[in-house]
């Protein structure tokens, strides 16, 4: 029954009525992009604590912004990781390859070759530079937007494409939606469709590593929107209590599908501050500055490896594309935003830095771009020989019943038979 709502109580005093505050982004479609509320601290201005400093001594870093590359392309300040040019070029190339891969796969989805795709446009540094700062056998618990981790670890992009196409060469047997990779060989955990579940898992892996006297650490990633899930909290609590050797990355790319970061609490404080709440070392980093991402990750990794416990890193960046192939971002945000993001583009920034220090030039860059595009094209061609989604080249239907359990129980065997009988009845098998 529709019954009238209890009326607001008659005020006891002359109190003003309460008001509900509902956050609003600075700009909506048709409006000018507005990033005026973002304070951009100068590159090189953030202090760099000792690896073993107590977290309580540098809480300010959660409210600042660690930046290394300045406006002139120079690497400055205590966080400058002093990387060899050769390493910088490798980081650059991995970012470019990630972007080329994204571009191609996004188009493949538009061409009907698969059901879904998600780009990491503009956020390539967050994944790629972190991968370079970690050891190759450190364990990665990514969300769906860190394809750069796999690429930086030199994983086969053809294998990734097979997964995206759910084709007969897909190691995941066509079971997972595109981009939900799992690459044990590269210490890359199986990606989940459920947000933030990987966070406590990463902490558990790190606790296990610590309990066994291992030297490997774990790292996890989630979006700023995903920090609201309960798993985020349980992960931070466990990480804090057991001083787990883990790096908890929050990729604040300003948007969660159509919801701006204010709906995750971004208007009230930083996401790095979440870590402060648990007494966890917390850094806030310019996520579009590959050197800053590298330096912060490296610092956190050393801290974890020396038994000083977890670090939470907020990567302040921008999601330059839609959430996925399923949405049109101009329906909910200013169309100008991607272009006006004040922290620039990570690839351009690293390129400029390499040029500034005389280790790169425009020609080399163009050649690299052509080269990665070619690499992607070639991989795509081979991958498509193994099939694209919905065109017949897939794993045998009965594989559907495998891996539910290590051993198949009778009821699944019966269902497998039923399914095969059905296919036979329709002349399909």
């Amino acid at each position: 029954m529709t019954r009238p709502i209890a009326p607001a109580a008659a005020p006891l005093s002359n109190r003003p009525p309460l008001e509900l505050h509902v956050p609003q982004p600075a700009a909506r479609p048709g409006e000018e992009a507005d990033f005026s509320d973002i304070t951009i601290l100068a590159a090189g201005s953030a202090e760099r604590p000792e690896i073993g400093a107590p977290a309580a001594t540098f809480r300010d870093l959660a409210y600042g912004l660690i930046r290394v590359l300045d406006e002139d392309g120079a690497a400055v300040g205590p966080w400058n990781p002093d990387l060899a040019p050769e390493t910088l070029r490798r980081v650059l190339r991995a970012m470019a390859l990630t972007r080329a891969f994204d571009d191609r796969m996004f188009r493949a989805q538009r061409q009907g070759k698969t059901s879904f795709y998600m780009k990491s446009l503009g956020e390539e540094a967050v994944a790629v530079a972190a991968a370079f700062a970690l050891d190759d056998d450190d364990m990665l618990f990514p969300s769906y937007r860190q394809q750069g981790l796999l690429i930086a670890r030199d994983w086969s992009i053809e294998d990734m494409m097979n997964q995206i196409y759910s084709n007969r060469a897909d190691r995941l047997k066509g079971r997972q939606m595109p981009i939900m990779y799992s690459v044990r060989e590269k210490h890359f955990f199986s990606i989940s469709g459920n947000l933030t579940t990987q966070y406590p898992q990463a902490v558990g892996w790190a606790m296990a590593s610590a309990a066994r006297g291992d030297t490997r650490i774990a790292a996890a990633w989630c979006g700023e929107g995903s920090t609201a899930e309960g798993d985020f909290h349980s992960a931070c609590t466990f990480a804090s209590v057991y001083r787990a050797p883990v790096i908890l990355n929050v990729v604040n790319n300003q948007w969660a599908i159509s919801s701006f970061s204010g709906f995750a609490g971004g208007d009230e404080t930083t996401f790095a501050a979440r870590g402060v709440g648990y007494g966890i070392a917390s850094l806030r980093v310019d996520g579009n500055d590959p050197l800053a991402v590298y330096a912060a990750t490296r610092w956190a990794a050393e801290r974890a490896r020396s038994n000083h416990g977890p670090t939470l890193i907020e990567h302040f960046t921008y999601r330059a594309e839609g959430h996925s192939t399923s949405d049109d971002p101009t329906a909910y945000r200013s169309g100008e935003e991607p272009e006006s993001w004040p922290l620039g583009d990570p690839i351009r920034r690293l390129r400029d830095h390499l040029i500034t220090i005389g280790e790169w030039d425009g020609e080399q860059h163009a050649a690299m771009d052509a080269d990665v595009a070619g690499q992607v094209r070639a991989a795509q061609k081979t991958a498509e020989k193994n099939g694209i989604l919905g065109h017949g080249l897939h794993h045998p239907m009965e594989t559907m019943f495998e891996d539910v359990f290590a051993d198949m129980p009778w009821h699944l065997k019966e269902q497998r038979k039923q399914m095969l009988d059905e296919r036979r009845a329709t002349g399909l098998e």
Partner: protein
Amino acid sequence: MTMIQAINSALDVMMARDDAVVVMGEDVGFFGGVFRATAGLQKKYGTNRVFDTPITECGIMGVAIGMGAYGLRPVTEIQFADYIYPALDQLVSEAARLRYRSAGEYSAPLTIRSPFGGGIFGGQTHSQSPEGIFTHVSGLKTIIPSNPYDAKGLLISAIEDDDPTLFFEPKRLYNGPFHGHYDQPVASWAGHPASAVPDGHYRVPLGQAAVVREGMDVTILCYGTMVHVALNTIAEIGEVDAEIIDLRTLIPLDISTIERSVRKTGRCLIVHEATRTGGFGAELSALVQERCFYSLEAPVERATGFDTPYPHSLEWAYFPGPVRIREALKRILRD
């Protein structure tokens, strides 16, 4: 109207009638929901009554319960039914128990809308049919519409209901009926009789099934997407005179319509998309044989999804489509 439009209309009608109705969920505000079910509502009713939420299903449910205790009538959206599990404790231990444990002092007049079911290449986390978890929980009502007219009328009844109701929307039906053939062009609601949806307020009562096809040979119990698959399969087979019942509400169940039909036909097939073991079909099967045992001429059968996650590229072999139904009917009608 399409089903999505009918749902939108139900929300609109109820928000206009009762200012205690509020709509909340991930991306439901400015954007109007990833499936557009709440499109236009924020503009019309303001951010005090239609708002986006943080991404925490447990929080959405807990906050909605508190709002309900205040006197509001929250309608929450869980973006995909696959993501309802983080909210389970608030739903099961709180919403479903509040009236009971406070002996009626407090209640939880919530409606939880959630797109469910597969057939859109959503893989294992955008395709699940978890209704069987909720139908086991005392204190919850579970509603599943199969067409635009029912969707609107049932959603209005759900919102008006003083207890927590789960309203699972078969997403495969949002824009048109689905007959179970992936390889055929997508149908549209236009022209379907149930797409004639009144603009205003009307109810389809909870707890009442619809006999969507009368017949003498066998009773088919189904809901949601499977209603269309069953109807179409029977049409394709031609010679089976099946009585098809669209349950519409799983809890409370319309047991008398079921009993009447099975007593008449003596045979029963249950169809659902959810995994088989422990699904709502098990309860239906148990009830039918408990109550119609002496009328049954063949075992009650179940044509369901398999006991595996929903596999992305193999979903057409997973889905309980025309062949699975036909083969089951063959067995049931054999003797």
